[in-house]
C-alpha cells in the first residue's frame, strides 16, 4: 500500500504495533477474580450511596446489608427474625412500647468506637425523618425514642405496628455511627460506617464498590477478605464476564441462561421463590373497569401459562393472589380464575360489550413488563378488546399510575416478610396514590384497618385471609407470577444460598481456591 510508505508512515505503524503489544502483554495478567479471598459480584446498576436513609434500589440494599447491622436481622437465607445488635427485646401488652437490650462491646468500623444506645436513637431518628429519609413511612409508628442507659433503647409507638420488627431488620434499619455521620456530612453516603461483617473501603463511579472483612465483627468472622460489587448494565456483557471468570456471582434473569448454567458443571445455580409478585392492574375508576364482569373477562382471557412457560422459560411460578406465597398471612385457598377465553367472551357480552372496547395500557419499558404486555395485548385482541399499548420509562409509568390516569398498568411488587404495607395498597384512602387499582370496598377497608391496628396474630391472619379472598372475588387485577431469584455462581463459591429478599449477605460465604 503506497500511502503507508515513507518514514512518517513507518513511525506510525511502529507506534500502533507498540500500543497493541503493550495492551496484549497486559491481557494475560488481567485482573480476574481468581485471587483467593476476593469475591466479585455483578449488579445491574452502580450504587448511588450507602446511607440507610437513602438506599434507592435493591443495588444499594444488597451492599448495605453487608455493612450495617440492625437491631434485628433475618435468618441467613430466610425471613425469620433473629437478634443482631439487640440481644433481646420485649413488647408491652398494649403493643405500643418496645424495649431492646443492646449487645455490648460492638465496635463500629474504622475505629469509630463502641456502638451505644445513642447511635441507635440517632439512626432511628434519622430514618423516620420524612424530610430526609426515603424509608420514613416504614418507621412512621415510632413516636419517641428513649435511651435510659447506654445499652437500652425504648421505642414508644403511636399505634401498634407488627411490621416494625421487620423494618428494624431491613438495611434501612441499619445502625450508623453518630460520630461518623456528623463528621462526614454529605460525604457520609460514600464513606458509610456500620458494625456489619464487612467495612466499606472504596467506591469508583460505575466501576466498583469494595468492602473488606471486618476483623472486629461481633459475630463469626467473615471468611472472605474482600467483596467487590461490579455494575454491569448490559445483561449480555454480564453473562460474558461471568463465563470468563471476571465476576463470580450474577443474578440470572432469563430462561435461556438459567437452562444453560443449570446444565453446565462449570457453574452452580442457587434459586428461590422471591418475595415479589408481577401483575397487570386495571383502574376501576376508569370505565369500563368499574364493571366486575369486564374485569373478570380480562382476567380469564389472559393466558398466564404461556407467558411463564414459553416467554420466560420457567424463571417464575404462577401466582395465586397478590401476596407472594412465603409472606406470612398468605391465603392459599382463594379463587384463581383459569384461562378460559370462551367464558371471557361470554362475560364481555353479558357486560354489554359483545364487540369489545378500546383502552390504553402503559408499562415500564423493561423486558419483564413488555413481554407479558404484548402477550396480553394479543389475547385481548382475540376478545375484541383493542389495547393501545404504550411502553414508557419507569418514572412516567409510576407517576401516571399513582395519579390514576391509566386504565391498565403493570408492575412488580417487592414485599416485606409481613403483609401490612401490601394490604394498604387496597385501602380506598390510598387512591390516588399507592392504590393504583382505584379499588374502593368499605368492607375491605374495615378489615385492613382492623388487621393493621391489631397485635393479635389470630385476628390479623383471619382478616388477611378475608381480604385476599374478597380481592380475588372482585377481580381487582391479574396476579401474573412470583419471580424466582436465580443466582449463578462460579464453582469456587461455597455456602451461598439465594434468599427470598434477594439480599447478598456474604459473611458465611467462602471461596475454595482449588475448585475448578
Amino acid at each position, binding site marked *: 500500500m503506497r500511502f503507508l510508505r515513507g518514514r512518517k508512515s513507518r513511525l506510525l505503524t511502529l507506534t500502533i504495533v507498540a500500543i497493541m503489544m503493550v495492551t496484549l502483554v497486559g491481557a494475560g495478567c488481567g485482573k480476574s477474580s481468581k485471587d483467593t479471598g476476593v469475591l466479585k459480584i455483578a449488579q445491574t446498576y452502580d450504587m*448511588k450511596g450507602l446511607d440507610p436513609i437513602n438506599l434507592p434500589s435493591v443495588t444499594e440494599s444488597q451492599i448495605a446489608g453487608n455493612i450495617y447491622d440492625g437491631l434485628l436481622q433475618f435468618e441467613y437465607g430466610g425471613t425469620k427474625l433473629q437478634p443482631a445488635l439487640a440481644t433481646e427485646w420485649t413488647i408491652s401488652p398494649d403493643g405500643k412500647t418496645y424495649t431492646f437490650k443492646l449487645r455490648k462491646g460492638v465496635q463500629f468500623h474504622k475505629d469509630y468506637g463502641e456502638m451505644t444506645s445513642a447511635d441507635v436513637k440517632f439512626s432511628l431518628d434519622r430514618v423516620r425523618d420524612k424530610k430526609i429519609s426515603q424509608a420514613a413511612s416504614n418507621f412512621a409508628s415510632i413516636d419517641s425514642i428513649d435511651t435510659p442507659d447506654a445499652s437500652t433503647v425504648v421505642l414508644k409507638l403511636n399505634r401498634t405496628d407488627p411490621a416494625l420488627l421487620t423494618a428494624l431488620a431491613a438495611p434501612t434499619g441499619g445502625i450508623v455511627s453518630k460520630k461518623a455521620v456528623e463528621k462526614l456530612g454529605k460525604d457520609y453516603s460514600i464513606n458509610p460506617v456500620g458494625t456489619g461483617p464487612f467495612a466499606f473501603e472504596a467506591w469508583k463511579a460505575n466501576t466498583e464498590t469494595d468492602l473488606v472483612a471486618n476483623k472486629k465483627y461481633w459475630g463469626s468472622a467473615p471468611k472472605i477478605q474482600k467483596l467487590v460489587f461490579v455494575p454491569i448494565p448490559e445483561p449480555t*456483557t454480564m453473562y460474558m464476564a461471568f463465563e470468563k471468570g471476571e465476576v463470580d456471582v450474577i443474578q440470572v434473569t432469563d430462561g435461556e441462561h438459567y437452562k444453560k448454567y443449570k446444565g453446565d458443571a462449570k457453574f452452580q445455580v442457587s434459586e428461590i421463590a422471591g418475595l415479589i409478585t408481577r401483575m397487570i392492574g386495571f383502574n376501576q375508576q376508569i370505565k369500563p373497569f368499574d364493571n366486575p364482569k369486564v374485569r373478570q373477562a380480562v382476567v380469564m382471557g389472559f393466558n398466564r401459562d404461556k407467558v411463564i412457560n414459553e416467554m420466560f422459560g420457567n424463571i417464575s411460578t404462577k401466582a395465586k393472589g397478590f401476596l407472594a406465597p412465603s409472606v406470612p398471612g398468605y391465603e392459599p385457598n382463594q379463587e384463581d380464575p383459569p384461562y378460559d377465553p370462551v367464558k371471557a367472551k361470554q362475560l364481555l357480552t353479558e357486560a354489554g360489550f359483545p364487540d369489545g372496547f378500546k383502552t390504553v395500557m402503559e408499562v415500564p419499558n423493561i423486558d419483564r413488563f413488555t413481554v407479558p404486555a404484548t402477550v396480553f395485548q394479543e389475547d385481548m385482541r382475540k376478545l375484541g378488546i383493542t389495547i393501545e399499548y404504550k411502553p414508557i420509562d419507569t*418514572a412516567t409509568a409510576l407517576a401516571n399510575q399513582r395519579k390514576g390516569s391509566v386504565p391498565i398498568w403493570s408492575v412488580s411488587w417487592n414485599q416485606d416478610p409481613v403483609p401490612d404495607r401490601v394490604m394498604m395498597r387496597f385501602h380506598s384512602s390510598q387512591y390516588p396514590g399507592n392504590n393504583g387499582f382505584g379499588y374502593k370496598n368499605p368492607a375491605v377497608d374495615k378489615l385492613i384497618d382492623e388487621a393493621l391496628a391489631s397485635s393479635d396474630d389470630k385476628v390479623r391472619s383471619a382478616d388477611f385471609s378475608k381480604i385476599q379472598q374478597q380481592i380475588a372475588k372482585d377481580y381487582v387485577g391479574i396476579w401474573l407470577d412470583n419471580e424466582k431469584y436465580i443466582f449463578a455462581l462460579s464453582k469456587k463459591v461455597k455456602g451461598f444460598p439465594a434468599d427470598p429478599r434477594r439480599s447478598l449477605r456474604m459473611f458465611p460465604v467462602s471461596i475454595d481456591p482449588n475448585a475448578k
Partner: protein
Amino acid sequence: MLQYIARRLIQTIPTVLLVTTFVFLIIHLVPGDPVEMILGDYATPDSIVAMRGALGLDRPLGTQYVSFLTGLIHGDLGTSIRTQRPVMAEIRQRFPYSMMLAFGAVAVSTVLGVPVGVLSATRPGSWQDTISMVGALIGVSMPTFWLGLMLLFLFAMKLSWFPVIGAGDIGNIPDTLQHLVLPVLAIGLSGMALTARMTRSTMLEVLGQDYIRTARSKGLAKTIVIYKHALRNAAIPVVTVVGMNIGHLLGGAVLAETVFARPGLGKMVVDAILARDYPMVQGAVFIIAMVFILVNLLVDVTYAALDPRIHYN
C-alpha cells in the same frame, strides 16, 4: 487571533444559557417526579410533601431556575437529588473516562479514516476504492451496540486478548489501554467510515483543481502533491467532522459505556434523566455543552493554521 478567541468565548455565554434553559424546561416538562421515584412503591402523601419541601422542589419553577443560575455563576452545579452529592463531584469522577473514550475513538477514526479516504480518492473506480467505500458504508451502518458485543465475543471471549468489563485502573497505563481498545474500536470504526468518506469526496474535489495539475506538471513527487498540496486543502471539512465527533462522543458514548460497563458522562446523563435527577441533568448538559463549544472553537482556530487565507482579525 487572541481577540478573536476572547470574542468567541464571550459569545459562548448566551449559547450556554440557551442550552441550559432549554434543558431545564424540557426535563421539568416531562412527566414523572424525582421524589416519587426515590420513595418508590410505598410513598405516602405526607412523605412526598415533606421530601419535596426539603429538596426545594415545591418552589415555583422560576425560583428553581433562578437558584440554578445563581449557583452556576458561583461555579456550583447543585446537589444531585439521587445521590445527595455535588453534581460537580459526580461529573469529575467520570469526565476522564469520557475524554479517553472520545479522544481514543476520534484518533482511531482519523488515523485510519484519512489514509483510506486518500487511497480511494487517488484511485477512483479502482478495486481499492470500491472495497474502501463498501467497507465505509458497512462501518457507518453498523450499530455500536451490536459491534461492541461482537468485538467482546471475538476478542474477549474467544481469543481472551482483552477483558470484558470495566475501564481498568486509571493509574496503570497498560491496564487502562487494554480496557480502552475494544470500546474505542466499537465507536471509532463508524467514525472512521465517516471520516474516510468525507476525505474521499473533498480530496476528489481538490484533486481536480488547477493548482494540483500545476504541481504535477512541475514534476513534483506524487506523495508530495497528494499529502502536501491536496490533503491540506481537503482537510478543513475533515477537521470539522473530527471536532464534531469529539464533542458528540463526550456525552453520546452511552451505548459503548453500557456494553463495556465503563464509567462515563453519557450513561450518567441517561440514568439521571430516567431518575428525573434535575440538577444532575442540568449540570452534565452544561459541562458537555461547554466542551462542545470549546472544541468547536479549537476547530475554527485550526482552520486558520491549515489555510493561511483564513484570518480572524
